[in-house]
């Protein structure tokens, strides 16, 4: 008898990826708690052959965060920061250009007036009908408070992060 194995799909927030890859010693105390969950989640995703999706914005956020909060603050050298960014961006994320109408509608539902960054991740999750995994409690609170019908998990709450 053939048993089909269901492949799981997730949208993964840039913060989860950074938490799982940046050396633990570079992270502040709060981040170190989330870092273990983030790495466990990604390790399980590999084991389960999960497919991890991101909006194209992900690449820009990774490049920016590593330069601004890593290289320019002297956390690591220019060369090491470059290596780190290259390693992250070379992984096989499934990149998407989100549906602009979804992005604007989510942004409006969140009552946001600044960057559409959160909305881009949420729009991809909505379009693919799969959960967004994040380490950002502010994002989760907004989705819950504004009653937005998109599945969002804190990486520490998901079974794969525990």
């Amino acid at each position: 008898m053939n048993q089909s194995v269901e492949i799981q799909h997730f949208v993964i927030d840039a913060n989860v990826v950074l938490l799982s890859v940046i050396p633990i010693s570079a992270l502040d105390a709060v981040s170190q708690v989330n870092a273990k969950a983030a790495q466990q989640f990604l390790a399980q995703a590999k084991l389960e052959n999960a497919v991890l999706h991101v909006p194209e914005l992900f690449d820009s956020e990774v490049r920016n965060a590593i330069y601004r909060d890593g290289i320019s603050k002297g956390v690591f050298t220019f060369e090491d920061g470059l290596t780190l960014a290259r390693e992250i961006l070379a992984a096989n994320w499934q990149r998407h250009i989100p549906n602009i109408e979804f992005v604007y509608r989510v942004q409006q539902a969140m009552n946001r007036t600044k960057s559409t960054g959160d909305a881009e991740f949420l729009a991809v999750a909505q379009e693919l009908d799969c959960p967004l995994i994040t380490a950002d409690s502010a994002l989760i609170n907004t989705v819950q408070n504004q009653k937005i019908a998109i599945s969002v998990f804190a990486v520490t709450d998901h079974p794969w992060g525990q």
Partner: protein
Amino acid sequence: MSKVNTVPQPKEQKPPKSPESFRGLPRSTIKVLKPGIFNPVEAIRSLRDE
């Protein structure tokens, strides 16, 4: 000799590729010069609050 109108043949349709599964990403071993200050959640949040 009369010309023959040829109808362009549809290109062979390839089945859509199924998305590749995640192959993993190890924690980096790069040297840390200033420990204990990087907060990835704050780093991404501040980009999205601009």
